[in-house]
């Protein structure tokens, strides 16, 4: 018996922080990045007596967008409930969530490998604050308390660690494309709780839940680890305990945190302070009509570019790049667009360029740049140099042609001008042997001559043109 005899089944809950201007139930700044602790907290978030939540309509709209991005049914009536537990990061002593009637109903997500994962539902809720523990005291920061979240609950449709990762990555892309989150995993904008079980039969095994994973890699590793751990237990004839487990990124292991028996009773109750959310179908239709293109639409459109999957998916991780590439494709066709795609994947997505503002170069400029290479006005090396400059803020007013000119990179195609340089090279003593070789039909030697011309022209000569001209002159 081994792992291959077991089927692993995974379901994932994902919390997405919505990037609304204000919090879910209060009108204070929702963006706490780099802010002083407890500086984005209203009396509502602080849970003073007599404070009442007021639902942020923008958060409802973002939730609808997220639902549409996942091909989910949007429920016209949804309600909020209170989920009770005591912890200092939860000022009211309850979290306002949607237990019974969530805003987003069932749907499904198509993964790049062709598989599907069904969405059970997704609901709106508020985030909790943050605790920092010290040796004999703890500090509470409520900046994050009240940040709008949607919790996306998948069906147990996932059957490998790689698929679990692919699902999380696709979810991340969908949320970015729907423009509902900043999607910064490091800041906790998306967090994953992963339920894993193993079985040799079609009957699902007992599951363990690994909570609070904040990277795709940790999702994949945690699923892999749990698969091993559970199979080992089952092989020894032991039972998997239904429990919550924590992930330790350093050791690469999960550890038991809380068993089912110790699970809290959340004493759910309808939230009496927030009226039901009642949406008109026309409101949803309007949002749907204005939704941007989703990754799957780009995938099918980019088919003509013949990109390999990893290159395509890397570009798709950045909606701005996918959008630009799509526009280049529309403007310049399948002739010009693949070159731009390669620039994106090989240059912009290199580690050192990831902090660049990818929106700086417009699709027209990128098309122009690709066209210059196509027309031999620029070498591919020169184009890469120009591209780098296009992502510098100081150059936003300049066209690629202007940049190339300034950088002295425009290729010399003028045969008279090139002819003079070639004559100079062919008469130079150090080139005499190579010239003779070419005359005698030893065409390998032409490379040396072209190289010399390139050197003399400081790289501006178009090598193809030079090649042709040398052949003509020595024939």
């Amino acid at each position, binding site marked *: 018996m081994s792992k291959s005899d077991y089927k692993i089944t995974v379901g994932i809950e994902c919390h997405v922080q919505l990037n609304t201007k204000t919090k879910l139930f209060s009108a204070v700044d929702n963006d706490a990045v780099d802010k002083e602790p407890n500086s984005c907290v209203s009396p509502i978030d602080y849970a003073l*007596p*007599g404070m*009442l*939540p007021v639902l942020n309509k923008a958060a409802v709209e973002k939730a609808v967008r997220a639902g549409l991005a996942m091909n989910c049914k949007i429920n016209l009536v949804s309600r909020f409930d209170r989920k*009770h537990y*005591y912890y200092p990061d939860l*000022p009211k*002593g*309850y979290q306002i969530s949607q237990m019974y009637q969530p805003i987003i109903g069932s749907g499904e997500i198509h993964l790049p490998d062709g598989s599907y994962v069904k969405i059970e539902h997704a609901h709106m809720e508020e985030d909790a604050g943050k605790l920092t523990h010290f040796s004999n005291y703890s500090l509470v920061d409520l900046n994050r308390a009240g940040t709008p979240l949607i919790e996306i609950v998948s069906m147990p449709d996932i059957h490998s660690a790689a698929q679990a990762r692919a699902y999380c990555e696709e979810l991340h892309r969908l949320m970015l494309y729907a423009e509902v989150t900043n999607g910064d995993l490091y800041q906790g904008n998306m967090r994953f709780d992963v339920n894993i079980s193993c079985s040799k039969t079609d009957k699902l095994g007992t599951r363990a839940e690994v909570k609070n994973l904040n990277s795709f890699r940790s999702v994949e590793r945690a699923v892999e680890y749990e698969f091993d751990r559970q199979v080992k237990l089952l092989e020894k004839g032991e039972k998997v305990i239904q429990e919550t487990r924590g992930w330790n990124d350093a050791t690469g292991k999960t550890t038991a945190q809380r068993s089912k028996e110790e699970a809290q009773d959340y004493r759910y*109750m309808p939230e009496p302070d927030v009226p039901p959310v009642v949406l008109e179908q026309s409101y949803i239709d309007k949002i749907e009509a204005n939704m941007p293109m989703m990754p799957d639409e780009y995938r099918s459109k980019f088919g003509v570019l013949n990109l390999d999957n990893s290159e395509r998916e890397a570009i798709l991780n950045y909606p701005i790049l996918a959008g630009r590439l799509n526009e280049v494709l529309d403007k310049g066709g399948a002739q010009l667009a693949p070159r731009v795609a390669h620039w994106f994947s090989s240059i912009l997505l290199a580690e050192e360029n990831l902090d660049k503002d990818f929106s700086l170069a417009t699709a027209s400029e990128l098309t122009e740049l690709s066209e210059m290479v196509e027309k031999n006005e620029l070498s591919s090396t020169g184009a890469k140099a120009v591209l780098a400059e296009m992502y510098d803020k100081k150059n936003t007013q300049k066209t690629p042609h202007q940049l190339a000119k300034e950088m002295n990179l425009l290729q010399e195609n003028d045969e008279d001008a090139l002819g003079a340089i070639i004559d100079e090279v062919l008469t130079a003593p150090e080139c005499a042997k190579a010239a003779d070789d070419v005359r005698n039909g030893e065409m390998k030697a032409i490379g040396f001559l072209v190289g010399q011309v390139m050197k003399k022209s400081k790289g501006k000569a178009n090598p193809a043109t030079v090649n042709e001209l040398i052949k003509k002159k020595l024939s």
Partner: protein
Amino acid sequence: MIIADKNTKAVDLVRAALDKAKEFEDYHCFISMNEARALDKAREIDEKIARGEKVGRLAGVPYALKDNYLSPEGVTTAAARMLDNFPSPITATAVAKLEAEGAIMIGRANLDAYAHGSSTENSYFGPTLNAHNKSRVAGGSSGGSAAAVALGIVPFALGSDTGGSIRQPASYNGVWGMKPTYGTVSRYGVVAMASSTDVMGCLANNADDVDLVMSIIAGKDPKDSTTLDNFWNRELEDAKPKKKKIGIIKDFLGDGVNPEVIKTVRDYAEKMKKAGFEVEEVEMPIMKYGLAIYYIVQPAEVASNLSRYDGIRYGHRSNEAKDLDSIYSMSRDEGFMPENKRRIMIGNFVLSSGFYDAYYLKAQKARTLLINAYNEAFEKYDALLCAVAPAPAFKFGEKTDDPLQMYMEDVMSVPPSMAGLPALAAPAGTSKEGLPIGIQLIGPRKSDQMLINIAKSVEEVA
């Protein structure tokens, strides 16, 4: 009520109220006084009047504020140790509206801690005495507000009513009390008890004053999503209600109701007939379940709403607490009164998994039946009549050892609360012992002013 003008100084109105408050100090209507600021504000209003500037509709009128309304003046305690040192940075919407019209808060009125109770005996600061008999309770939870109005200290007071907390003390002290339609007045800035039935209202000495104060504090508030658009229109409802049909709830005229109370209701019905109303008895058997429904739904919401008092951010924190668990348990143990704890325990029980369906969910279903029964009754009747409470004010300590007996006090007042209906308590008679007895008029949603006008026209006949 007397409004300040060229001839009547606001300072005199406020000073008179403060003097009376001192005179009746032993009734313990107030938890704290707001003397200095009240006089300052009165002077400001007098200066405005002297300069010929416009002043509000309640210029210089002193009032008592139930101490569960937040206001930056002094400390909002909710009569609980938990909040006995809580200076609020917030002003409740109702308070802000009154202040904008020139009303002047002279003190914070006593209540049962967190408004849990029917006698003000649950106040951490001690009970309020009945205005008509010092050996009797003032009722509750707005006992301080009711006694302050009945003693003539202030012409009106703000109260809150979750299951009878305005109406029952009004009845016990012989004053008027309005529990408006749910959502009429903003709950923003009032310490929550049970959110789905909490309403803010007032107590006063006559129907016109109730109408005036309600017309000012009513209205939509963006800070309270459950508020209704303002339907209070003083001009429109001024016309006398004619030929209305009234149903006396028969189920509250039998067992468990004091004969003197029954007689008062029947006498009131006769007066109504004289005033030209058509009156007949109506059976509403579901009324007897009202109390059971209320004492499941209300503690559930109470338990939830009191979760925020955890000793972490504000309010009482136990000096003995050593770690997180003991901060929670000891602070809450010391900060809450026994009745608060009883309701937290009941509430958490009915919401806990395994019991939710049997208690909370079932109660909510029964609540729907109750609402349906009212709707049905209102197809036939314009308003319903019954007493406010089964008996006149009881003696101190009489019911403190038996919570169920205490809860029985609410049997007639909780059904309209569960249905979100307006209910008006009006003085109707006096017992042989000289204790006031009030009646209650209940109408469809937003019929608040009609109820006031019905009671007014009955009073004119008598």
